[in-house]
């Protein structure tokens, strides 16, 4: 269980403070490398407890139009896996405690070389990995080698993950379990609290790993509602849209983009923290 120390420590601390965590997702290299690095650096001060970074891919099958577009923008700007590792390295220059999780698809890692990727990403300061197109049946590909290097392999559970399937999903997971709140892709439908509550209760009966809930959470009020029933709330598409909106208004004014993003992330964080 004790693998990536940063994620584990973060959830211990949140629990001590009786808080729910905020996990913010941004895409590496969107709208360009420098802005994504500056946004990343600013997230902890705006209330992000864990930072999730999307690794751009041409064919993101689990993502909605918002994240698809952000991946294509980043690729157009020349983002690649090497630069994504660099992003973490640069972030770690002034931040040693905020956990960083990479999320994406297997092919870029496969092509880069799994061993080389894990080694370089770990050295850069990576804590966890979410690879959406690698099921537990393929654990020997990335999950097992990642676990050996103390990188948490974070798995997704969905509303259709049955009670028979859940133990397989949980088995080699560490850090936290990512509960997909809707049947569908990122940034799509609005989650139904009652269903999530019921399913989380089932998962909690099987494991004590922290549960983060994401997909489809866009507003402070939704974040607040989810925060009452989970250990952490993940917001992605809405943040990416906010960054892109600001960038389109004034692409040369980095402070403006950072401020717009920060105001939004703070609104999410404040909503979550008033849960009691």
């Amino acid at each position, binding site marked *: 269980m004790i693998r990536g120390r940063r994620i584990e420590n973060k959830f211990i601390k949140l629990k001590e403070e009786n808080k729910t965590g905020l996990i913010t997702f941004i895409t590496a290299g969107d709208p360009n490398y420098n802005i994504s690095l500056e946004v990343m650096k600013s997230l902890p001060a705006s209330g992000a407890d864990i930072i999730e970074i999307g690794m751009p891919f041409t064919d993101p099958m689990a993502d909605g139009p918002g994240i698809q577009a952000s991946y294509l923008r980043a*690729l157009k700007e020349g983002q690649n896996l090497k630069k994504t590792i660099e992003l973490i390295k640069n972030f770690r220059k002034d931040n040693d405690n905020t956990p960083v999780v990479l999320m994406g698809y297997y092919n*870029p890692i496969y*092509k880069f070389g799994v061993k080389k990727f894990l080694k370089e990403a770990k050295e850069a300061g990576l804590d966890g990995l979410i690879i959406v197109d690698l099921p537990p049946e393929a654990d020997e590909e990335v999950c097992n080698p990642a676990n050996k290097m103390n990188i948490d392999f974070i798995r997704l559970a969905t509303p259709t993950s049955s009670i028979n399937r859940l133990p397989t999903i949980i088995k080699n997971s560490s850090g936290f379990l990512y509960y997909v709140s809707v049947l569908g892709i990122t940034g799509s439908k609005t989650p139904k609290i009652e269903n999530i509550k019921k399913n989380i209760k089932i998962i909690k009966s099987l494991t004590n790993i922290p549960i983060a809930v994401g997909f489809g959470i866009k507003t402070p009020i939704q974040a607040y509602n989810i925060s009452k029933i989970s250990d952490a709330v993940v917001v992605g598409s809405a943040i990416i849209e906010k960054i892109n909106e600001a960038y389109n208004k004034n692409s040369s004014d980095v402070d403006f983009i950072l401020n717009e993003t920060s105001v939004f992330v703070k609104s999410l964080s404040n909503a979550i923290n008033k849960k009691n």
Partner: protein
Amino acid sequence: MYFASRITRELGGAKVYFKRDELNHTGAHKINNCIGQVLLAKRMGKNKIIAETGAGQHGVATATVCALFGLPCTVYMGAKDIERQAPNVFRMKLLGAKIVAVESGSQSLKDAMNEALRAWVSSVEDTFYIIGTAAGPHPYPMLVRDFQAVIGEETKEQIIEAEGRLPDSLIACIGGGSNALGLFYPFLDDVSVSLYGVEAAGKGLKTKEHAASLSLGSPGVLHGNRTYLLHDEDGQIIEAHSISAGLDYPGVGPEHSYLKDVKRVNYVGIKDDEALEAFKFCAKLEGILPALEPSHALGYVMKIAPKLDKNHIIIMNLCGRGDKDVFTVADALGVKL
């Protein structure tokens, strides 16, 4: 099975037979698989069907079985393909299917598949996804192979009836690879039979515009399977090119990758212009308009048959008819319709 006597005479070498899959209902081998999968959907109690399509042949076949079984059908199709395959789009609509234009990515087959997968995760409780080729996540590559293996089984029976022995060579075109796998599968253990899979070499294997993932790609993971892919050094998928929309896919069914690695099947390429020549050749000599996909297979037959002995028996799968391609061919030949 059909003996192409005039083509055989003209090429002056091997005896050329066609497996006439283009005579199937809806004009291609695609229907074999759709009937199998729609029955499975029924059995599983799923009452809605979705599918992806490139050229539209699989979309038409899916729309057809849905009409027959009274199931609502949604077909995901790249916006670019909708434009270049207008007759099939209209056919699908006549059959009662809803067409969703996919605007993401390269707006062609791989993006249609992405979008269908996205739609499926959102509707998996009541919806069955009929994948059109021997690719995608497990168990689709096996399912599609088994439903298409009827091609090879019939071929075996019919050639033994016609010639009293097994053929020497089997030739089929490869996009995702379902017609080729269906033809080859019952012959895999018959080591005397040479197998040739013909990929689309587009404008040439030395150019960047082709769809030859087996010949020029490298292993990768896409759409839930590990297979040869066209991708760059960062693992980003590269757009394929072929004059034939049905071969225009940057991956290939994983079993073909296996058959390449164990060297059971020879994978070769035929260019756009060679396929066009074969298309015209077949029309003039046999009175058959082949689809542009099997025109690639025929292009390879034309290359090797003249060099082979008169006793050598080649069977080529004529997996689709060419009516759908008349506009593309006219355009490529500079003819205005």
